[in-house]
């Protein structure tokens, strides 16, 4: 009984994860701009990765419950991969967005760009000039 419920939850998690990863690909194709594409590509893949890795973790916990000693190994290693994704994905997205803005890519249909008035590059240059 418990095993069947866990199986249904695992398949549900797999479906949700694959659906959001497909949404990332579609959003990457359909959005008009670097920043909106970054939004689609990063958020959807992070959310989908949580669910796909969560299904693997649930399956490992079920194996552990039924007495298979390979189960805890899968749980710990998949949790390590999930933590690596969760730490590196938003940081990389922030770095790409900052690089795109500083290399001069404008948002489509943007009227006001508040960041343009105070670029951080000039501040570092004046600091170097003071030295």
């Amino acid at each position, binding site marked *: 009984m418990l095993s069947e419920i866990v199986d249904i939850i695992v398949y549900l998690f797999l479906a949700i994860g694959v659906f959001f990863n497909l949404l990332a*690909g579609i959003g990457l194709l359909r959005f008009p701009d670097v920043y909106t594409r970054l939004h689609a*590509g*990063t958020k959807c893949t992070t959310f*989908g990765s949580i669910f796909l890795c969560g299904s*693997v973790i649930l399956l490992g916990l079920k194996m552990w419950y039924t007495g298979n000693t390979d189960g805890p190994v899968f749980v710990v290693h998949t949790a*390590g991969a999930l933590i690596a994704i969760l730490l590196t994905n938003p940081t*990389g997205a922030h770095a790409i967005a900052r*690089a795109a803005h500083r290399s001069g890519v404008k948002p489509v249909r943007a009227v006001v760009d508040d960041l343009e008035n105070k670029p951080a590059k000039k501040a570092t240059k004046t600091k170097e000039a003071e030295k």
Partner: protein
Amino acid sequence: MMENFNLEYLVVLGLLLLSIILCLIRVVKGPTAPDRVVGLDTINTIVIVGMVIFGIATWNVIYIDVAIVYALLSFISTLFIAKYLEGGEF
């Protein structure tokens, strides 16, 4: 190896491959360089998840270890390309 493969995970891996192909179209088509970098970053994340799914499908832990190392290396390469696009000193 293939006799241990759970066939229901083949559907998941095929749909992830379709998503990678959609991102690859953006990498080929992208008008500016940051567009291509966004596509590559998305492909990296999907490949990591695909490795985890492949590891549970073939019941081998070694693919999940490879996924952890791939995640950290792709993060470093993304930061490096972003720093290059920004035009700063390393």
